[in-house]
């Protein structure tokens, strides 16, 4: 259902193609990107390169797939983007490959050297580059509006963001007062450390919006001691990854001490929904929220109240 809604949002005839809305919007436009740069865009961009899966998904959600002329290797969704020319990925980004597509807008995120490798050369070539951040879910929705403004699809950006916000509001309205405590592992441990989703990241925000609270709120780095995770004894242990990796983790010493493992509340979540800050995150939040409501109902007060009452998330 959420996927269907998202698909309808893409298909919705917000602007009647690239032309109409863009023509109504006065050009050039000036936008302020995620890191506070003022970017002037002279004409409605027709050849867009979104770098990173999240930016590609955001652009596609605004119906811009036809205008996308290049993606990087990890962009695997939506399907219509997988056949686009590749401009890099695993080993960095090729300025040449990007320039060969004659883009008129580049959308990047500060990861894998993208900013450092690309902003300067692209600016010299006269290609506007907007940088998007995703520090929380609200910022992800804001990115839809920003891409909308930059591409002449401001109304569409507003509409898609508002539709996603409405879904989030609906989830929030159904969130029970007593929130189960959560820890999300975002990778399998290689040398004993557990990689966890920190509270101050967009993934951490998504967990709270789904109706949970963080069992571990103070983490300086994403690497937590498994001992700390086990001692926090969250109501639900989330694992962003494959079921077999979760099973392997549960078999390691100590993890069976967790109530969540013993009582069948160690769940996998989809990496694309919780680690790619795009529209699918809202799908992930809805699915997780539904499962968490089940926990609250099944466990009554006892389970949720038992874990670390002092570490409640506001």
């Amino acid at each position, binding site marked *: 259902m959420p996927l269907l809604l998202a698909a309808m949002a893409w298909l919705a005839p917000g602007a009647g193609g690239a032309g109409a809305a863009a023509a109504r919007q006065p050009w050039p436009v000036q936008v302020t990107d995620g890191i506070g740069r003022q970017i002037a865009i002279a004409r409605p961009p027709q050849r867009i390169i979104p770098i990173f899966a999240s930016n590609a998904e955001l652009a596609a959600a605004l119906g811009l797939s036809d205008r996308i002329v290049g993606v990087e290797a990890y962009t695997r969704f939506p399907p219509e983007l997988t056949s686009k020319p590749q401009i890099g990925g695993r*080993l960095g980004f090729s300025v040449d490959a990007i320039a060969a597509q004659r883009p008129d807008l580049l959308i990047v995120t500060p990861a894998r050297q993208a900013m450092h490798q690309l902003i300067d050369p692209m600016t010299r070539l006269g290609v506007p580059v907007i940088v998007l951040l995703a520090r929380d879910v609200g910022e992800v929705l804001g990115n839809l509006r920003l891409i909308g403004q930059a591409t002449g699809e401001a109304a569409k950006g507003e509409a898609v963001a508002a539709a996603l916000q409405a879904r989030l509001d609906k989830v929030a309205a159904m969130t029970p007062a007593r929130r189960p405590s959560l820890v999300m592992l975002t990778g399998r441990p290689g040398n004993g450390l557990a990689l966890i989703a920190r509270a101050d990241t967009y993934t951490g925000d998504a967990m709270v919006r789904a109706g949970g609270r963080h069992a571990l709120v103070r983490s300086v780095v994403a690497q937590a001691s498994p*001992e700390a995770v086990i001692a926090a004894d969250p109501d639900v242990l989330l694992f962003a990854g494959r079921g077999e990796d979760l099973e392997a983790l549960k078999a390691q*010493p100590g993890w069976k001490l967790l109530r969540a493992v013993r009582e069948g509340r160690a769940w996998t979540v989809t990496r694309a929904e919780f680690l790619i800050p795009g529209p699918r995150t809202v799908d992930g939040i809805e699915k997780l929220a539904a499962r968490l409501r089940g926990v609250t109902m099944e466990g009554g007060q006892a389970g949720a109240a038992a874990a670390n009452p002092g570490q409640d998330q506001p």
Partner: protein
Amino acid sequence: MTPQTGRRLQPRRFLLLALVLAGALLFGLVAGHEWASPARLARAFANSGGHDMTSQLLMVWRLPRVLAAAMVGALLGVGGAIFQGVFRNPLAEPYLLGASGGAAIGATIALLVPLGLPGGPVLAALSFLGAWGATWLVLGAAGLQGRPDTAGLLLAGVAVAAMLGAVRSFLMLALSDDTVNLQVVLSWTLGGVQTPDAGGLAILALLTAGALAVSLPLARGLDLLGLGDDQAFAFGLDPARFERRAVLVGAAVVAAAVAFGGLVAFVGLIAPHIGRWLIGPRHRALLPASALIGAALVAVCDGVARAALPPAEIPLGLVTALIGGPFFLILLMRRLRA
């Protein structure tokens, strides 16, 4: 030779080292996300089958980890003592002949390639093979034109390490997925002991005992090497053959440490030095002393890694370098002043 030449095993100093190790193990058990008082520990030992969460955590998770950390440290200490003996160089460390680069390639493959095999054993096996294989590669490269001298071995080690480092970096970039897997490999290269299950702990204990058993017979040869090639030859040692054998044994010992603890920095360098200062240069005493010192160092550093920034855990290799570095410098300065 040095004044200690004629001394025997110095049981009092070994007793002291054993007490230090016991203290380090106790610290490792006490330190953690939540500090446990010795009384709490005693209750956990008494209540090991009970349902109390803290007791179970201490017994099931923390105790095996502390023991594993100590054994990894012991292996590094022994490996370091062998390498410093072979190369007659106080700067020699166990990763000198490419072991770290090789191990890291093995670990990168284990962590990033879906092999469809159980993760933990594959990681240990591949990092062991990588570490040991790299040393064979160095010996092979240096020995192509007949007998390698020490400088030739070291240079071959540097070259192979550089190549392996590049291959590792390439694999990390080429095999990693978009999100967090690189972090997993990076944190592995910074060292860290994973709590083993009972079987893993038994294997590690066997490896540690075996490492001491195969290293001790090298003691006489390592002592003779210290006299110089000619003297060693006069005492009936073939230095070239012995070096090769000792390097392979040392590398296997270090590879075992790497398989269970990742790339833990610095311990293999400083444990033998401290041992030499306490016990003297005779390898029959130095090898077990280095094992005890390495074990104590890693047990303490692992405790600090778990306790310093809860609930986060600092990779062990960073702690060993951060704590071991100044500690070593203080000892060094005192010694220079004396």
